[in-house]
């Protein structure tokens, strides 16, 4: 597909892309630090990943192969519309296959397939500030970051345990980056948290409405916050995937018929389809990989 001549490559003008790239470079230089940037109006509503879209627009080159996932799936309305947007405005090749993608924009998941050097993972972020839950004043949270006053993050986890008997935060689980900045990893399930650290790919986080960009360069140390007597656990539903039999992937519970029948399937559709194509069958496909 050729890009429409109405737009500059990847929609944003070069000046804007340079401004966003500067924010990205600053973010990479100070891992986990929220860099303000002048978010632009995008031809889609906030909540549709305008922050992620602007970051993708700033890093895409004509040679890239672009993938978009929404909660792990390539085929949701949101994922399809963002993919189509860049096919039109940048003319880049797209794919659903994680290993061949060079830029992956994601909402709420990290792909199961381990990422590699040279790949860029772009997160859509609704609320970049992990401290906001207990401290709504922006001036105060900025000060807390700059002075490393992070006791409040543990108050949040303390409240979780006192109310639920365990740390009930199951997504957007706060992390500490390179023993310095506390960061919200966006609403990924905490199952994905271990993949944030020591990752060969570049990870970029864009919050459009909140006008913040932050980043993790490759092989960054990322630690999930916890208590000595309530250690972090990357939990998931205790089932194998009904379709591909995988027992190491993050699962969605889906309703399969109108009598309330349910099954657990990989949230990462590309991973699941890849395993099925390789001959793996879960119990809901009558396979012998069934547990």
């Amino acid at each position: 597909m050729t890009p429409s001549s109405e737009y500059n490559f990847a929609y944003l003008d070069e000046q804007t892309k340079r401004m966003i790239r500067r924010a990205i470079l600053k973010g990479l230089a100070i891992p986990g630090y929220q860099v303000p940037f002048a978010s632009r109006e995008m031809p889609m509503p906030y909540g549709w990943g305008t922050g992620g879209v602007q970051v993708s627009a700033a890093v895409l080159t004509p040679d890239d192969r672009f993938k978009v996932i929404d909660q792990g799936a390539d085929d949701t309305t949101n994922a399809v519309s963002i993919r189509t947007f860049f096919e039109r405005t940048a003319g880049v090749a797209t794919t659903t296959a994680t290993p061949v993608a060079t830029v992956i924009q994601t909402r709420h998941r990290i792909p199961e397939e381990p990422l590699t050097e040279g790949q860029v993972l772009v997160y859509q972020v609704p609320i970049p500030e992990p401290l906001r839950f207990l401290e709504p004043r922006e001036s105060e949270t900025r000060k807390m970051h700059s002075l490393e006053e992070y006791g409040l993050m543990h108050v949040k986890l303390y409240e979780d345990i006192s109310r639920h008997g365990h740390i009930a935060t199951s997504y957007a689980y706060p992390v500490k980056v390179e023993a310095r900045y506390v960061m919200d990893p966006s609403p990924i399930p905490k199952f994905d948290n271990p993949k944030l650290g020591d990752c060969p790919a570049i990870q970029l986080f864009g919050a459009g409405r909140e006008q913040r960009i932050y980043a993790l360069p490759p092989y960054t140390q990322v630690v999930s916050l916890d208590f000595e007597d309530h250690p972090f656990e990357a939990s998931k539903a205790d089932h194998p995937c009904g379709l591909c039999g995988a027992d190491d992937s993050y699962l969605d519970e889906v309703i399969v018929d109108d009598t309330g029948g349910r099954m657990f399937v990989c949230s990462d559709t590309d991973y699941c389809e890849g395993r099925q194509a390789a001959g793996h069958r879960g119990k809901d496909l009558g396979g012998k990989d069934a547990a």
Partner: protein
Amino acid sequence: MTPLISVKDITKSYGAHIGCADVSFDLYPGEVMGIVGESGSGKSTLLNCMAGHLRPDAGSVVFDTRGHGPRDTVTMSEPERRMLSRTDWAFVHQHARDGLRMGVSAGGNVGERLMAVGARHYGDIRDKAVDWLERVEIDAGRVDDRPTTFSGGMQQRLQIARNLVTGPRLVFMDEPTGGLDVSVQARLLDLLRGLVRDMGLSAIIVTHDLAVVRLLANRLMVMKDGQVVENGLTDQVLDDPQHAYTQLLVSSVLQV
């Protein structure tokens, strides 16, 4: 003996209006200083200058820090000052809701200072919180309840527990009994007196209530129009006031 805090020539103006002027005094470990005066006398301005909430126009506030001995807290860096205010210092606000997190359980409120200085064992933090709730006469069964469900007196006691849990060396109090019913005030005063005695607390208490200083303070400073008009041992000042304003203050209380 080194003073715990040595205040010298503290001056703070708001434009042409003088908040407080040329206030100096030393407080030694284990002493409780009361500062009384009417509203507008400068006592709150002075307290906020000492506690690092306001930057004075002139003067120094030298605090004997645990790690580095006497340091001027006016000129030290903000991170150092904020560190002091969560370790060596405590601040009890008049309105408990200014000093509490109303959306956090009682245990979380008491535990916050512990976590702020690195406590990372949930069980230990909770045990300490429960211990402190009991010390301020709040039923341990309320540890998971939010302060919004507490009475005014309980909220104030919770604020005190939250402040004292890390064993601060100096407690600033701004009208700690203000706004409470008389019977509730009496109970709070008894509790504070017990804590001051048992912990050997050093404190600076700003109040307009002479009953509070009579009960809690060894020393008393009387302020009017931003100036200290009288300064001495509490009993001496209250029983034999020298300054005309203090005499008026004491007599008006006695007539009530």
